[in-house]
């Protein structure tokens, strides 16, 4: 599994907020996505969109409840179509399967269309070690591959790169002349990749959906690299998490309406490919071999927990990222894993272990905006809260709240358990705040943990009399009746 650095969130998020480069990119892109989505939704009366979300959520729930049945159906149908299905318990196994397939056909070069599962697997590094050159063909993924970085956003992996940075990357790696013309940069990528399309031995893709009824992998793309990857090379390998399954071919229509609108505000993407197996013998072109690898890699941790199971409904649209006040200020890298934003804050701790990602469930104000925009109605704030609860009172492998936090909470509890205790604390507070209060504000709280407040904000001092006191002394008696 690619190293998850989620325990660094505090430092990484503070650095991101201070980085002008990241802030410029976030300002530019986030509003664009939000407005595009809002515009796309105008086509439906709100009740219709709600019904669509409700139906999609129910279909996904039903699928997950019966996932063993549907995975079996996928296997039988893909095989009937002439393809092969492989089951991988973890990233290491999935990587081995890909390498074995590549070696069995003597592949020296693999072209890849976007696959987040393959990022989880760290597939590219493994392929390189085995002497197989992986080439990302999705423009955003290509850029971050050249930059040796992880995706910054689920849908727009290179959104943090300015045109100058892209130009520098192309200059360094492809020896092309620098340019700040975006169209030119795209055309450079087009030429470079076109060559690879024509000569690659094996094409590797992800899957947006896997239809159980017909054994069909659905790819939702805009550039054309997905089609190239699945049409030209002799072998096509599709890698999918087990949660991407949807039951019936007629369900595809609903998901094709929800996904592009939620992700990029498009009614439909330029291309949708429906791949059910290798080419028919009489076809003019297309791969001779089709492999589908179904990957667990920690997803069963989510599946086996009835409360967390709904996180597997995710169709990877990225809408939660675009609306999240936290993501909008820090971007994807701070989350330290392949999946960022609200959904990342849920699945990363569950798949990698809470202790490795203990900050993530707290990287949220629980504002609920993500839940509002999720096309499959995942209750992300509830799941974040549950993770927080596990950090405090969960199993031994989950408990990770700090000694300081626990102490603070016990103090708080004691202080507010009775009126008398509260008033004693308040009296003490009024006494202590004297020296640090100026003109009715506290500019610096010299206290651990809570002191962070006053770096950018004033703190209100306690009022001279509590409301309860005022009530007792003045208000209770008069004004009645």
């Amino acid at each position: 599994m690619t190293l998850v650095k989620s325990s660094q969130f505090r430092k990484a998020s503070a650095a991101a907020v201070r980085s002008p480069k990241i802030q410029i990119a976030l300002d530019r892109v986030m509003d664009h996505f939000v407005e595009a989505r809002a515009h796309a939704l105008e086509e439906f009366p709100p009740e219709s969109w709600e019904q669509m979300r409700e139906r999609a959520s129910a279909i996904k729930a039903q699928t997950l409840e019966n996932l063993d049945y549907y995975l079996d159906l996928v296997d039988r149908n893909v095989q009937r179509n002439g393809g092969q299905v492989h089951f991988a318990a973890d990233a290491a196994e999935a990587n081995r399967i890909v390498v074995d397939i590549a070696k069995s056909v003597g592949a020296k070069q693999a072209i890849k269309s976007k696959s987040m599962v393959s990022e989880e697997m760290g597939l590219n590094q493994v392929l390189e070690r085995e002497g197989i050159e992986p080439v990302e063909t999705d423009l955003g993924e290509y850029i971050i591959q050249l930059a040796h970085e992880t995706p910054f956003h689920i849908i727009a992996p290179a959104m943090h790169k300015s045109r100058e940075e892209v130009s520098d990357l192309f200059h360094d790696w492809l020896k092309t002349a620098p340019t700040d013309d975006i169209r030119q940069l795209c055309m450079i990528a087009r030429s470079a990749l076109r060559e690879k399309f024509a000569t690659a031995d094996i094409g590797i893709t992800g899957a947006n959906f896997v239809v159980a009824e017909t054994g069909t992998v659905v790819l939702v793309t805009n550039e054309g690299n997905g089609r190239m990857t699945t049409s030209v090379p002799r072998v096509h390998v599709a890698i999918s998490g087990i949660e991407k399954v949807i039951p019936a071919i007629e369900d595809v229509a609903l998901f094709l309406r929800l996904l592009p609108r939620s992700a990029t505000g498009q009614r439909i993407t330029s291309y949708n490919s429906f791949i059910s197996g290798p080419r028919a013998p009489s076809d003019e072109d297309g791969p001779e071999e089709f492999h589908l690898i179904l990957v667990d890699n920690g997803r069963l941790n989510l599946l086996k927990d009835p409360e967390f199971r709904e996180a597997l409904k995710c169709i990877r649209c990225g809408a939660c990222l675009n609306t999240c006040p936290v993501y909008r200020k820090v971007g994807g890298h701070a989350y330290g894993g392949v999946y960022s934003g609200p959904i990342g804050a849920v699945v990363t701790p569950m798949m990698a272990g809470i202790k490795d990602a203990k900050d993530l469930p707290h990287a949220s104000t629980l504002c609920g905006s993500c839940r509002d925009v999720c096309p499959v109605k995942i209750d992300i704030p509830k799941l974040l809260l549950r993770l927080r609860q596990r950090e405090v009172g969960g199993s031994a492998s989950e408990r990770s709240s700090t000694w300081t936090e626990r102490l603070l909470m016990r103090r708080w509890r004691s202080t507010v358990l009775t009126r008398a205790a509260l008033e004693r604390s308040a009296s003490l507070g009024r006494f202590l705040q004297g020296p640090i209060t100026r003109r009715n504000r506290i500019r610096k709280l010299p206290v651990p943990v809570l002191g962070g407040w006053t770096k950018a904000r004033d703190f209100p001092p306690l009022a001279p009399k509590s409301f309860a006191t005022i009530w007792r002394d003045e208000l209770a008696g008069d004004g009645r009746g």
Partner: protein
Amino acid sequence: MAVAKSTEPTNKAEFLQRVREALGRKEPLLYPPDYPPLKSATIRQEEKIQTVLARNAARRPRLLERLAENAGAAGWNVHRVWNPEDTAQTVADIAKKAGAKNVVRSSEDVFKPMDLDGALRRARIKPIVLASSRSRPRADLTGIAFDADMGVTGVSYAIAETASCVITPRRGLARITSLAPPVYVAVVRAEQVIESLDDYFALVRLQYQRTRGRGVNYANFISGPSRTADIEQTLTIGVHGPGEVHLVLVS
């Protein structure tokens, strides 16, 4: 808690058993889940399709209008042809305007009643039928398509809701005809136009049931030109697939 690293390949039975156990079960389901879309038998599907086809036939003129409108908005160049005999000339004109020197096309039935090759040659454009033959093995087709200036195919369906042309490759229709050249022309006959995504997948389901699953292994929707906004969220048209797409709608 990290997932245990496996050294033995997982077989399907083990894998599914683990999934089952995660769901709190020890045994596979006795009966398939009660999910109506999966249970509807072929006879029902046939009835449904009768309704779908009848509705589409009845609404055809409006559907053509809607397709043309949505396609225009999605970035297609839409050409309405009212007289089928004019189709070949329309396509040749597109090729000429695009400055194409050679055009690859499929050998689909849609081209039979017209002389597209003749119209192209008259415009001094070389037509190539991208189909394998004794003189041209499959291996060569890729190179030819990658060098071509324009590609032309028919469609299986055109979906008005999303302005999607459905291309289903088979003998005589290579996938890359509609993908590799920078310009692409889809020739759509009026009776191929259907209303919605739901209609399309209902049709696919029936075909799947009729052929007992030995149906079509690949289908592709083309709903506009190739595009990306991966650099600074700025839209660029024509990255890997065709940047210029034409929909020739023959009534």
